[in-house]
Structure formats: C-alpha cells, structure tokens
C-alpha cells in the first residue's frame, strides 16, 4: 500500500513538472508582458531594460529552471499586473471558486440523480419528456449564453437576484472569505452555480438514467420483484445503489473540471475567483500568475486522481490481490 502511494506521488510530481514545462513553452506565444506594464511614452531603451530586469531575455531553459527552483520553495513572485505576491492573490481568490464549485457540484449531483431516476422510472411520462428536452438545452447551449440569459431573466426583468459579484462576505478564522453567511452572499451564488452546474447536471442525469435502465433489465431485479418486494425497495434499495458506483467516480472527476473551467462563469458574473484572475492575467501576459495558476490546477487534478485511485484500491479487493501476486 505504502509503495503504491509513493509511486503515485512520484508520478504526480512528474505530471506537474510536465504541466509547468508545457505552460512555460506556451507563454512564449502569448505576447509581450512589457506592453501592458508600461505607458505608451516609455522609450524603447527603458522597455529593453525592464525586459532584461525581469529576466525575459534569458533562454527558455534558464527561465523554466528559475521558475521550478522558486516554486519548489513556495515562491511564485509578484504579479506584473496587480503588484501583489502571486500566492497571496491566488489564495485570496480560491475560497470564491471553491464555494462556487462545491455548491454547483452538489446541486448537479442531487438534481442530476433525482431527475435521472425519475426519467428512468417514468420513461413515457410528460414530465420525463420535458426534462429530457430541457437537458438537451443544458448540453448544447454554451455556458456564456446560459449565464447572460439567466442574468437577463432573474436580474434585469424580475430583479430577484443580483447580476454580478459575490455580495457581502465574512472572513472566517484562517482567512477564508465566505459568502455563505450573508443573505446577499447566498443570493449572489444562485445564478453562477446554476450556470456552472447545468452541464454537469445533465451529464449526471443522463448517466443515471442509462445505468438505471440497464440495471432494471437485469435478472436480480426480476428476482427481487418475484420475491414480492415493494417498488420502492426494488428501485432504491437494489437498482439505484448499483448504478451509483460509476456516478460517484464521474462526479468526483467532474469536480476538478468545475474548478478548472469556472473561468467563463466567473467572467460572466464578475465572480472574484481564480478563474477570473487567470483570464485577466492572460490578457496582459502576467506570467507569474498564469504559471502559478496552471500548476495549481494541475495539483488539484493530480490530488483528485490520487484520491480516486486510492478509493479504487480500497473498494476493489481484486486490485489488492493482483498487486500482491506481482510481488511474489
């Protein structure tokens, strides 16, 4: 077990190094950070001096080695754009993104499973048909459009919910800034969470529905019915339980994507999270923030994958036996 974990951690470090290398190679094509850092009056000589001072003239390998060396010590430098330490910036924005991702992931799971089960059991009902049609919209409409549409209906026309921002926040101990504790914070969360979670919700719903239909055809369900069990016990005790294993795996992996792809939702709703920070940094080629963000996202994916792998290991006895066999 321990050897397995160590092996996985070594692999994770290699993955993160690879991500850092690829992102660094890409930065060379994003543009020149100096353009955004100085005013139009700045002379070519001063621009060249600043470029030299920031080490942008160094060969790619030297820049990369310097980045990895500093990153290993937890030092990601100062943002070119906002002039604040990068790590502090990202940590101050992370709670907003995590809260949004958590709520939309949770909502997607609860509503996705509920609607999936319902449409599987009442395949020909009018409501099922309506849900299936609506879910097509969720899969096919781009996130940007859904966000703007929701803003238009609920903020401009009905004026029920705020159109942008995070509302009032409360700072908890350890510096975590939460929007859960104020009324405006909770109201602000609704529209972005729907926008971000809609796609995941339809995905989960369709997955649950397909799995349920599959399971309901199997022999043990027939036996359960033959034993005279109630519909309720058959559907939820036997069928749903057996569909949930792949659903949980997918949901866990999707949580990583929700965090990573919150960029569009955060931009539309001016949500002060790391996604919006990243996109604003890309616009002006703020290399320190971009590189730290990409490494952070890689870290999140790597950690989630590691946990999923370990869960497999714990859940599936066959894995353990096989690995034990290899050792002998």
């Amino acid at each position, binding site marked *: 077990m321990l050897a397995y974990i160590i092996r996985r951690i070594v692999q994770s470090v290699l993955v993160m190094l690879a991500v850092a290398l690829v992102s660094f190679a890409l930065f060379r094509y994003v*543009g020149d950070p100096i353009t955004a850092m100085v005013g139009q009056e700045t*002379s070519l000589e001063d621009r060249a001096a600043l470029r030299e001072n920031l080490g942008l003239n160094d060969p790619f390998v030297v820049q990369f080695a310097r980045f990895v060396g500093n990153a290993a010590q937890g030092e990601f430098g100062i943002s070119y754009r906002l002039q604040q330490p990068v790590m502090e910036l990202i940590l101050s924005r992370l709670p907003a993104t995590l809260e949004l991702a958590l709520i939309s992931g949770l909502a997607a799971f609860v509503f996705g499973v509920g609607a999936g089960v319902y449409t599987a059991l009442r395949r020909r009902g009018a409501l099922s048909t309506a849900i299936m049609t609506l879910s097509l919209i969720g899969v096919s409409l781009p996130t940007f459009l859904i966000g703007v549409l929701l803003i238009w209906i609920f903020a401009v026309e009905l004026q029920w919910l705020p159109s*942008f*921002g995070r509302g009032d926040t409360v700072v908890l101990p350890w510096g975590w800034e939460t929007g859960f504790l104020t009324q405006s914070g909770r109201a602000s969360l609704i529209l972005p969470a729907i926008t971000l979670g809609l796609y995941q919700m339809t995905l989960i719903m369709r997955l649950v529905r397909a799995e349920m239909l599959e399971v309901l055809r199997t022999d043990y369900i027939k036996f359960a019915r033959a034993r005279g069990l109630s519909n309720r016990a058959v559907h939820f005790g036997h069928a749903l339980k057996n569909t949930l294993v792949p659903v949980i795996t997918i949901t866990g992996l999707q949580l990583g994507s929700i965090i990573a792809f919150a960029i569009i939702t955060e931009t539309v709703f001016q949500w002060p999270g790391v996604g919006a920070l990243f996109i604003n940094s890309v616009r002006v080629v703020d290399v320190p923030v971009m590189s730290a963000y990409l490494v952070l996202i890689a870290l999140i994916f790597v950690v989630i994958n590691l946990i999923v792998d370990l869960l497999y290991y714990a859940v599936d006895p066959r894995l353990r036996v096989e690995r034990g066999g290899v050792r002998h």
Partner: protein
Amino acid sequence: MTSFLTTAPRRLMVSALALALAAGASHAETLRWARVADALTLDPHSQNEGPTSTLLHHMYETLVRRDTDGSLKPRLATEWSIHADDPTIWVLKLREGVTFHDGSAFTAEDVVFSMDRVRHESSGFRALHSAVTGATAVDDSTVHIQMAGPSPLYVQNLTNFFIMDSGWAAANAVEVPQNFAAGEENFAVRNANGTGPYRLVSRDPEVRTVLAHFDGHWDADPQVTEIIYTPIAEAATRVAALLSGEVDVVQDVPVQDIARLEQTAGITVATGPENRNIFFSYDQTSPKLISANVEDNPFSHPEIREAMSLALDRDAIQQVVMRGQSQPSAAPLPPFVNGWRADLNAYGAPDYDRANTLVRGIYPDGFSVDLHCPNDRYLNDEAICQAFVGMLGRIGISANLISQTRSQHFPLIERWETDFYLLGWGVPTFDSAYVFNFLVHGREEGFGSYNGARYDNPEVNAMIESLATMTDLEARDATIAQIWDKVMEDRVFLNVHNQLLAYAVRDGINLPVHPENQPSMADVTFTR
C-alpha cells in the same frame, strides 16, 4: 454590492427625506460606479494606465487638472509660470491650508519628494518627466522645477502627477514605486494617503473599492459623499447591472448597446469625443516589404498611398461599424489638441475608379500584403480592419488580416515586424508635439518608439526637436502647422476617426464626459 434589495429603498428614503427637509441642503449620497477594469494599483507613480489614474484622482491630487473642456485648471498649484529670468525653470505656487487624509500638512517638500519618486526608474510615469533635472522648495508654498532646457509646455505633463506625503512615504517605507524584480509588495499598492476629495475606506482588488468624502478637503463639498467602485469585465453584465439598478454609473458602455440604452426609460447616455484617434499606417521607406508579393515596396509610391486614402470610406465605417459613435477625420488629432485645424481634418468622398487606376498603373495585377490589427484594444478595432480589407479589395490590394491580442500586436510595431497596421493614439499633453515625438520623428534615442511607418525626414526631425525648447508660442504653432502639412502631404497616417466616449447613468445623475476618460465623481450633480 451591499445587497441592492435593501439599498434601493434606503436611497429612496434618503432622497425623499432630503426633499422634505430643504432643497439644496447637502445630504449623504452614495454613487455606485462600474467600469470594465479595476485600478491595477493604488501606488500613484507606478502604472501609467487609464483606469488606475482615474481612480487615483479621487484620492490623490495633482498640481493641475484637465477640465472636461480640455483646459488646465488649478488644483494643488494655484499659479504656474516660467521663471522671469530663466526659461529653464518652472515656478509653481502651491495652495495653502491643504492637508493629507492622515492630517499632516501639504507643503512644498511633498512636491519635491513626489517629483523625485515619479522620476525613479521603477515609475511608469518617468518618461513624462525626462526633461526635469530636479525640483527645489523655495519656501513652504513655492516650488521651482529645473528643466534641462526651456520647456514651455511642460506643465501639460503634470495632469497625472500625483502628490504623495513625504512623511507617510518614509514611515511606510514606500519612498520608491513597486519594483517587480524585488519580489516584495509595496505598502502603497493597497493603501493611500492623498489630499483628494475622497479617502480610502476599503479595497478588495477587482471586487470593490469604497471611498468616502474627506471632511478636511480644501474644496467645496461634493454632492457624492460615498463611492462604491466595482469593476465588471463582461460588457453584457455591466449593462445588465445598470438596468437592474445595481449600479448608478457605467463608464465603459459597449458601442452596440448605446442606442438601446438611450431608448431605455430611466437611463441617460452621455457621449463626448475621446482623446484617441484610430488610424492605419504602413512602412513607406524600406526597399522591400516583409509580407508583400511584389519585389519593391508598394507603400513607397505616393500613388499607392493616395489610392488607399481614396479607398477608405470613413463615413461607411462610422455608420456601419461604429453605429454613429465616432468622429471621422483625416488627421490623427482630436479637436481640442493644440495644432488641430479644420482643413487638416477635411476628407473627401471615396473614389474607387480613380484609386483603381492609380494602383493598376503601377501593379497591373494588384498586390497583396498582411494587415496587422489588435482585437481587444480599441472600440471595434478588428471590425474596422475587416471593413478596410473589403474596401482595399475593390482597388486590387489584397490585404490578409491578422488580428490578435494587444500584447502580440504592439510588439510588432515596436520591433518593426509589420508592414501595415492599425494603431490608436491619445495625446495626454494636448499638444501636437506628443504625436510627432512618438510617431513622426525618426527612430533614435527617445524618439519614434511607435513610428512603424519608418518615416525619417531629417528636415522634419529638426523641426520636431526645435518644438521642445521654443518659448515663442506663435512661432511654435507655425512650426507645428508646417510639420502637419508635410506629414499630411507624405501621408504618414491614414486616419479613420476619433473615438467617442459614452457614459450611461441613471436618470437624475449628471456626469460630464471627460476627454481623457478620467471623470471625477466629485463633479457629479443630482437633479430630482
């Protein structure tokens, strides 16, 4: 946003109360102000960037300010003049009885300190003060600024020169602006202590900045007593926030929304000319172009340059691309800038037949060339380029449009890697010399950094250099006129238009459009 559900009724109550009590009496009034981007820093000498300076003008003050009509108005300096005996010295009389937000008095020492700080190598404003050799405090309310040579228009460079308290800077170790390579955050990035009409209450970068009126300010009390500043990057969301009543003022209104907002009940749109011209330029001196399919340089032929200007249908671009929100003109100069002339800006109707004849006379099969264009810098920049590509196609010039983000576009001009490009230029000093220095003078030490035309005329260069030290303003204006005539004759620029600015506000709020796009919320008045 302090829960708009509760704010709106409170605002109504406040205004009702004020009406009931007495008209004209000052009362608490909050203004919620949204624009596309946040200030990058609160350090007043670090980033020479529009939104940053605009927000800083509320907390820090300059010696002189640019009024909405383009003229200079006294601010911390009450008088300014060139020294009677020495044309290289600017004499500034300072306002008395001014205090900083922390209570310390404003003196000549603070001006001297700020002048040193703004000239430090990590300052973004350094280039505007390159002619200064030093500043001295003659007494508590008089400062002498020593220039390297006579600089009759230097005072125009002071409109974004913010004054910082020397004592506060020393106490917080912020004697120099942020140095990126140093790896440490400067205290002045998130804290402010100026003499401005508003003091900083709280700041959450890119989320919300709250300012409150500073009771000790020297000027008359403004009607706005609290400002809540929120950046909203997405255009659709910004407009939605105004329509839903969550903000009162939107500074960056998308061009496509202006007409609709004007029709919306409860919203007023104010437009005015911005200090920024949009033009095409091309390499007219190299023997061969990088991207053209012909052996010589087509732009070196005056006939081709004339044909291109005949093909540019400025009115069509104004009506179709800009939806009426631009001022077409022939010279890249906004109307309020010194040196502007009506005859320079007159443009004729396009003449495609004649243009075609001119092009075919030299290149019977026409020619092709790359056109570089930014797509996130100016209003509808990419669409302007697309329109012009179509127009050029009608006269046998096939332009391949390459549009990309600003951080990739501008280095092409800087490194002379583009033959033909779109550029926008503002004139913060309100004097033609600024255009000449950066765009017309041949590229050498301190000159021509954006001269992508590679234009280099020794005669014109000499005239441009003479402008810096001419103290006889009439002779100087004559030289400016002479340079413009030559620049227009050689068609260094193919100007499209001057951009217009639009502010959208809720009814009852009056906010004049500022030509530098630096509106002051202290100028806002309310009508009920």
